[in-house]
């Protein structure tokens, strides 16, 4: 299926977010179109993670509007965002350490499970069917990410690269329509990065999932993004297709000015 970039699904208008005296985001506007890979870049502390947190309701901006498929939403909690099909990964791995890979992925299916407490207690009726049905879905994700061999391993025991992959798996298990990835390749070696890139592109391509990606590796960003937003000190300094952004003098200055 040739991927076709669709209409705007999330429109962020004049978002400002403060923590006490710290201005994490100042008056930021940009939009996300269906099926695209939209990257957010910027130096450390620019406000990239805060932006993702605003999109899926972890942080509530003091000012600004978020319009989702034409409807404005005031204040949304993360679980409501999940209900609308938003899923994400975190900059610092946020897996459920005490659970196996399989269970971590199964949590991604939770919103689709309807069995009541009593049904679950007796593993009866819907509880049984759901558990089997969703297990099948989760196995598809496991196959997709090539992690069959670690299914039953507690995630705490996995190496870093695999943990990142499992975290992507947990998000994918939810069959999201918007996937927010916060530095999914940070700290990986070249080979692992290539794998991760392949997974991201495949997800976007096969399922048409819209992806918002934060990444520091410019090579990767320029390669796979459709459009890129650049933040610096909480302000937007650039927005456009990779080539445009690459040649934007303000962006170049920001990157040269704050070498990390």
């Amino acid at each position: 299926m040739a991927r076709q970039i669709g209409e705007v699904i999330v429109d962020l208008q004049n978002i400002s977010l403060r923590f006490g005296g710290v201005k994490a985001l100042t008056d930021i506007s940009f939009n996300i179109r269906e099926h695209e890979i939209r990257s957010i870049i910027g130096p450390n502390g620019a406000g990239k993670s805060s932006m993702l947190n605003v999109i899926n309701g972890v942080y509530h901006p003091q000012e600004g509007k978020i319009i989702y498929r034409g409807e404005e939403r005031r204040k949304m909690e993360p679980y409501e965002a999940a209900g609308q099909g938003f899923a994400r990964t975190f900059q610092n791995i946020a897996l459920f350490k005490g659970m196996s890979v399989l269970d971590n992925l199964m949590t991604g299916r939770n919103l689709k499970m309807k069995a009541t407490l009593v049904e679950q207690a007796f593993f009866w009726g819907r509880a049984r069917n759901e558990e089997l049905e969703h297990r099948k879905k989760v196995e598809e994700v496991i196959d997709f990410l090539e992690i069959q061999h670690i299914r039953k391993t507690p995630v705490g025991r996995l190496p870093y690269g695999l943990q990142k992959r499992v975290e992507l798996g947990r998000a994918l298990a939810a069959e999201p329509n918007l996937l927010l990835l916060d530095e999914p390749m940070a700290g990986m070696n070249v080979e692992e990065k290539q794998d991760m890139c392949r997974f991201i592109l495949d997800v976007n391509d096969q399922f048409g999932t819209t992806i918002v990606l934060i990444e520091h590796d410019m090579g990767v960003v320029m390669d796979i993004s459709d459009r890129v937003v650049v933040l610096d000190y909480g302000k937007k300094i650039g927005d456009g297709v990779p080539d445009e952004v690459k040649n934007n003098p303000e962006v170049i200055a920001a990157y040269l000015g704050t070498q990390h």
Partner: protein
Amino acid sequence: MQFFFEILIGGLLSGVMYSLVALGFVLIYKASGVFNFAQGAMVYFAALSVVGCMEKGAPLWLALILAFFIMLLFGMATEKFVLRKMVNQTPISLFMATIGLTFFVEGFAPLVWGHSVRGLDIGIVDEPIESVLDSLGIVVSRFDLVAALIAGLLVTGLALFFQYTRVGRALRAVADDHQAALSIGIPLERIWAIVWGVAGFVALVAGMLWGARNGVQFALTFTALKALPVLILGGFTSVPGAIVGGLIIGASEKLAEVYIPPVMQAMFGGNFGGIEGWFPYVLALLFLLVRPEGLFGEKHIDRV
């Protein structure tokens, strides 16, 4: 009105004692992130050590010094044999370990010093101060006043110690950020040993005062239960919080004990005394619903 003030003052004075015990918690929590449930057991242990030494023939001053060294030793041993071995565990595990420690001390202390209830005479009589009684008609116990003064002095002393000495500054640095403190060469283990020593000292003073007032007995361990709501109210990390929280809890608890049961009695009939046991907790909880960060805490948003 006089009656009200009498209760209020009595409550505030005993509140200072709660602050004192709460302070022991705060010190250890600030410096090592451990919520030391055994603080109450330490109060009991310290008081028992004082009377124990006196029974062996030591005068009060010597008994106090000996007891201080016992508490110091105990603190260092705890740090060395328990807490240091649990550095990588969750705060809740550490907390549960201190519950274990509580039981250990509650068995160990009476095993060494005997468990019979004993009086402790520190030379202050528990009687109304006459001048106040004559001029205002309010009963204020001399003992409570002196105890509150001693506790107040100790609290001020510790605050100054934290603010102005080198060790105090190191302690605060450790409290703010363990890693950073380590990286600038502050010896964590020594700091922790000192903190446990100081907490032992605070327990000793509390044990002496409470023991002299109510007798040295197992019930001293319950001082911890009095201090816990103070901590919820004031925050686990705040010295001023411990003090103000103690005063609030002390005063409101006594006032509640006097004024609430009659109301309930009128409503339901029967006897509703003894609300002191839970009232501070419920008060602290209600307060938290309004202000989850506590009296002096700062609002905090989890970072992801």
